[in-house]
């Protein structure tokens, strides 16, 4: 079985993450593992033959076995609301992959890394964290309900900084704006480590530009845009 072959995936387990997101554990016959940061292509076919294809990052670590994808509901979306709200255990759809050889972290990279995630951009970063990446993490979210994996990140003792762009939790004294140069500088004044940036296209491009402005080598910045 090659990664490019479409295979039937069965939803083994569904775990709600936030009011708008869920993690689906998939049973994929012949699954031969993945690298932290990779994604799968997903294809759904309606009864009338209509097909929709999407990409979802894998949230689990390679050692976790069956791949888990975390899906955040997109307003007006076609596939994500189905994944988050309608899908049930034992449902099936097609997947192929895993794919991606650039936005990945391998255990051989033992130096500390920086990670900056916007919204569901945290998903592939979480796979790297779960795989043991020595990371400092900056997460931009609309509000508290929008932060994926918060309990687990705290339990793991991850060096985590948060900024809320729409609504702050009561008593919040931290950042409450979009990621900008000043924030990046305060968060991490040292230039040098590899940086992973993932999120909506506008978020990724603005953060990557700011990092370059602050002196980061573009060759050390690895980005993934999800639209």
């Amino acid at each position, binding site marked *: 079985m090659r990664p*490019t072959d479409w295979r039937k995936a069965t939803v083994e387990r569904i775990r709600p993450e936030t009011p708008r997101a869920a993690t689906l554990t998939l049973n994929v016959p012949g699954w031969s593992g993945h690298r932290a940061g990779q994604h799968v292509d997903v294809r759904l076919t309606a009864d009338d033959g209509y097909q929709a294809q999407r990409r979802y990052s894998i949230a689990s670590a390679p050692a976790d076995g069956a791949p888990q994808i975390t899906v955040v509901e997109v307003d007006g979306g076609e596939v994500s609301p189905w994944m988050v709200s309608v899908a049930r255990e034992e449902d099936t759809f097609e997947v192929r992959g895993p794919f991606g050889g*650039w936005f990945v972290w391998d255990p051989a990279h033992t130096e500390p890394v920086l990670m900056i995630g916007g919204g569901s951009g945290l998903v592939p970063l979480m796979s790297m964290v779960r795989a043991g990446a020595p990371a400092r993490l900056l997460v931009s979210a609309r509000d508290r309900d929008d932060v994926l994996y918060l309990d687990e990140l705290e339990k793991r003792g991850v060096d985590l900084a948060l900024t809320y762009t729409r609504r702050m939790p009561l008593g919040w004294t931290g950042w409450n704006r979009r990621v900008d140069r000043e924030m990046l500088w305060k968060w991490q004044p040292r230039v040098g480590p590899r940086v992973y940036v993932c999120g909506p296209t506008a978020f990724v491009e603005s953060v990557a530009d700011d990092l370059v402005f602050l002196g980061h080598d573009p060759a050390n910045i690895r980005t993934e845009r*999800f639209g």
Partner: protein
Amino acid sequence: MTHLDGNAVAGDLAAIFTGDLSAAVATCAGCGATGPVANVMVYEGMGEVLRCPDCDEVLLRLMRAHGETRLDMRGIKLLRWGSAS
């Protein structure tokens, strides 16, 4: 239309080439810029269009229609990837 990046077409390109091209290095025929395929801009519509992140030139067009695949790579002067010798 918002663009994506080269990570998004890893699956479609892997189905054509013999492996994952995300980390392969492409040279733009327009401006000579060089970088990993993961970093190019990707526009989805009638198929997929890959553009140079530096000069915006079309690097590659990929379309499936009428039971065939059409691949236009004139915008890539050179594509390099690691392989066993």
